[in-house]
Each structure stands twice: as C-alpha cells, then as structure tokens.
C-alpha cells in the first residue's frame, strides 16, 4: 500500500537501494565533462578516465584507442554493476531489473536478423550485440527465414515471446518488416513493463509511470519524424505508437498524419511538457531535438532519486549511466575527428 513502503522496503530492497545510490554518486559532473572536452587525443581521454571508476576497464587497452573500444569498456562496467544487483535481488525487484534489459534484447534480435539479411558473419554480429541483451540461443536467430520461424525456433523460450503475438506472420524478413517488427516488439515491451509497474503500486508505480510515459511519447515522436518521406503508411505508423502516455490517444491521431517537422511541432506544442522542449528548436529544425529530449529525460531521471523506497531508482540509474556512456562516445568522436567545437552539440550534463 502506498505510504507504508518505508516500513517494509528495506527488508529486501534496502541494501540494493544503497548500492545504487552509491553508484549514482559516481556519475560524472559538469567539471568532469569539461576536463574531458579539453582532451586533444583519445589517449588523453583514456588518461582522464583512468582516474575514474572506468579506469580498471580501460587500463589494459593498447594504443591507439578507438571510440568503439571506449564505449565497449565503459558498457562492461555498467553490465558488471547490473549483474551484481541482479544476483542480489529478490522478487519482484529481480523481475523489475530484468525488464530493464528487454529493450536491449530486442535491439540484439533485430541486429542479428538484419545482419543475416545482409549476409554478414554471425560471429561478427554477436560481438556487436549489447551485453545486457544477450540470451542463450541468440545465435540461432540467423537461420530463421520469416517471423514464424523466428518465434518457433528461438524466441518462444525467451522473455520476448509474449510480445510476438502481434508480429507472427509467414512473410519473409525484409527491411520494412524487420523495422515494423522492431517497433511492434518495443511497443509491446513498454506496455507490458508499464502494466507490471502499475501492479507493483506505490511510489514505484507513480515514478515509473511518468518515466515510461515519457519514453513512449518520445518514441512516438521519433517514429513520426523518421517515417516522414518513407513508405510507411499512416495506419502502420499509428499502430507503432504505444497505448499509453501523455500523447495517447489524441496526440497520436495528430502525429499519425504529420508530413513534416513543423506539423510535428504543431501537434506537440499543445502539451505543456513538450512545449518547453520544442521551444528550444527553431522552425524546420530537428537536429537538436534528440538533445532536448535527452535533457528532459535526465531531469526526470534525477528526480527519481529524490524519493526513497521504490524501484524507480534502479531504472533511473541504468538510464543515467547509458546517457553518460553516450556522452563519452560523443566526446570521443569529436576529439578523434578534431571537431571539438561541436562537442557541446550533444553532451547532456547530468549534474
């Protein structure tokens, strides 16, 4: 019951909440990012990171470094922290933590299927998969010819199985079908995660509802913008939007018929939380939209830590770390390409 969590939460979740709050304290501050932005080479970045919690993961990497190496090693740190929390968690926290990784699982499935369609080696594809989204039979995905086989041979024994009910057809896997499969799976996953959090109730339900609704709305906007000028029909586009969120259902009706970024702006500015996001952009521009959404997301994720005795802090921490890794990736790319003047285009400060 909401309000009495303080009495019982710490019995099973107290240790892990303390752990995750400790991890949160290790996130980079604006001063750390400013130091990183001053680096001239990737080796300088490695030197700066060696003094942080990422140090042990990068210390054995030989020069010259590559940006993908930095991202991979930093991701390994996140994976280690996640696995430590997962093995210590009891129900329902363990299920909650597993839900956080299903998005990566979907990305990995689509990566394997797409790469196989383009005749790439399965081993190379597996190396590029996100470690948080791995499962035992993932390599078998390469033999499936259509979605029915994909489900029957591999995914029926994975946590993604329930999300496939809307995708199962005998159509061959081509680029459009794969894209629709990706977004349909993610839609089903978000809705399922949302319902799970609602069932948990209390502060977890309140905080996670807000965070997942924002995620659903952002996905709706991205799907709309990315599908402008493509073969995706309005009906197909509408079917990819989640059935919850601030934009559901009237915002979705407007987004489904948008043909350019200004129409998207017109639809979104009717909602006060998104009016502030689009006010940062000039008309006709969409380049800075990602950064604006990330900044809003970071703000909401940081607010999750202002309350205790809920599972939202775990979700928020994972997302904040992923944002930090995205920042490191962008800074590394700007340094490697000698484009340091553009480094602040996409870095989102957390603190």
């Amino acid at each position, binding site marked *: 019951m909401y309000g009495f969590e303080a009495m019982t939460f710490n019995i099973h979740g107290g240790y892990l909440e303390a752990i995750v709050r400790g991890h949160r304290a290790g996130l980079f501050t604006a001063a750390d990012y400013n130091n990183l932005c001053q680096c001239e080479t990737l080796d300088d970045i490695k030197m700066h990171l060696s003094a942080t919690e990422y140090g042990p993961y990068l210390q054995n990497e030989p020069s010259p470094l590559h940006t993908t190496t930095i991202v991979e090693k930093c991701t390994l740190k996140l994976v280690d922290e996640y696995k430590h929390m997962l093995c210590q968690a009891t129900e329902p926290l363990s299920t909650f933590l597993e839900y956080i990784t299903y998005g990566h699982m979907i990305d990995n499935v689509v990566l394997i299927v797409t790469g196989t369609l*383009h*005749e790439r080696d399965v081993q190379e594809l597996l190396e590029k998969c996100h470690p948080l989204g791995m499962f035992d039979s993932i390599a078998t995905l390469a033999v499936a010819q259509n979605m029915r086989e994909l489900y029957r041979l591999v995914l029926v024994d994975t946590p993604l199985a329930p999300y496939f009910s809307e995708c199962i057809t005998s159509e061959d896997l081509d680029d459009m079908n794969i*894209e629709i499969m990706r977004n349909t799976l993610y839609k089903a996953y978000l809705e399922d995660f949302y319902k799970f959090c609602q069932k948990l109730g209390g502060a977890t339900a309140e905080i996670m509802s807000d965070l997942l609704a924002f995620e659903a709305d952002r996905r709706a906007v991205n*799907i709309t913008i990315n599908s402008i000028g493509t073969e995706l029909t309005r009906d197909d586009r509408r079917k990819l939007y989640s059935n919850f969120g601030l934009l559901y259902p009237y915002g979705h009706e407007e987004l489904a018929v948008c043909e350019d970024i200004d129409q998207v702006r017109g639809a979104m500015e009717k909602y006060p939380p998104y009016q502030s996001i689009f006010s940062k952009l000039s008309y006709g521009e969409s380049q800075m939209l*990602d950064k604006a959404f990330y900044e809003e997301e970071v703000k909401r994720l940081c607010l999750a830590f202002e309350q205790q005795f809920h599972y939202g802090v775990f979700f928020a921490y994972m997302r904040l770390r992923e944002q930090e890794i995205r920042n490191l990736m962008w800074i590394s*790319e700007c340094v490697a390409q000698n*484009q340091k003047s553009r480094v602040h285009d996409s870095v989102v400060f957390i603190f």
Partner: protein
Amino acid sequence: MVVDHETPSLENGQTDKEVEENANVLQFMDSMDAYLTLIHSLSSTLRRGWLELASARHSMGASRVNTVLLDHTSHPAATSLLVTQDEGKVDSGKPHFTLCKWASSSNENSLLGEKHSSQDKLHPQLRHRGSTELYEEKTSSENKASREVDDPVQKERSKSLSMFGTLVSPKLRAAQLSFEH
C-alpha cells in the same frame, strides 16, 4: 617612335612564344587554384559527413549504426564517370567528362548528368569548369527531368540506407547527402 598597339608582345620585348607560355602558366595557376578550392570543399564536406554519421550513431544507438551492418552484397556504384570524345568539335582530341549519379536535387549539374546518362550518349555535354555552353543548354526540360529523377533518386537513397533500418534518423540521411556531395 611608332607604337604598334596590335602587337603588344613586341612592345614589351616578349615573343609570341613567351606570351603563350605566360598564358599557359596563368591557366595552370587558375586550374591549381580551382583544384585546391575543390580539395578544400571536399575535405570540409567529408568532415561534415563523418560528424553527421557520428551524430546519427549517437541518436540511433551503436546497435543500429555500426560497420557490421554494412551490406556485403554487390550493388551498383552511386557515382559513375562517362568519358567521351566529341567528334563535332574542332578540338576533338579533348575528352569530355560527365558525372552520372543519383545526387541531391539541389545539385543541378549532377541532375543534368543524370538526365544525360539516361538519354542519347552520342551528344555528350562539355563539363569543364567555367564553360557557359552547359548553362545555355539548360531548358525547361531540365525541370521535368529533375522531377523524374527525384523519385528514383530517393528510392536509391532509401535503398542504400536500408541496411540501417527503414526508419532512420534525419541525421543519417543528412550524412548520406554530405557524402553524396
């Protein structure tokens, strides 16, 4: 002293040969200047393209934009070069170069090349820098051609991006346009 304005080369003590050499040197310097300008423009466009690609990877995620997804199946080149000899011209020894590619609609020269490649190859167009004949030949048929090539051009672009998915970020499309230019 009689000043002969019709033979300025003699007035400065230069022979015709020297005047011709000076003209050649000036032409060489002009060409070098044009070459350096193009190199600089190419370098800056490539830098922009690489940064836009990194931005697309930042936006879409490393699992959607990575080297592993590059298509290893065979496909035609986005740009081809047509080299012809124009027999109708006096200086028919000079080769004529025509770029044919599926470029952006803002690049009128490339569209003209696209239009040319789809038409009669016995009438090549001179595409040397500074030539005015090319622009005099532009007629309203170019507008029709631009609309006709837009759809196949967009289809080719979408097809080449399909390895990264069908719903890709506008940043990835911008990177593609930069590399096309």
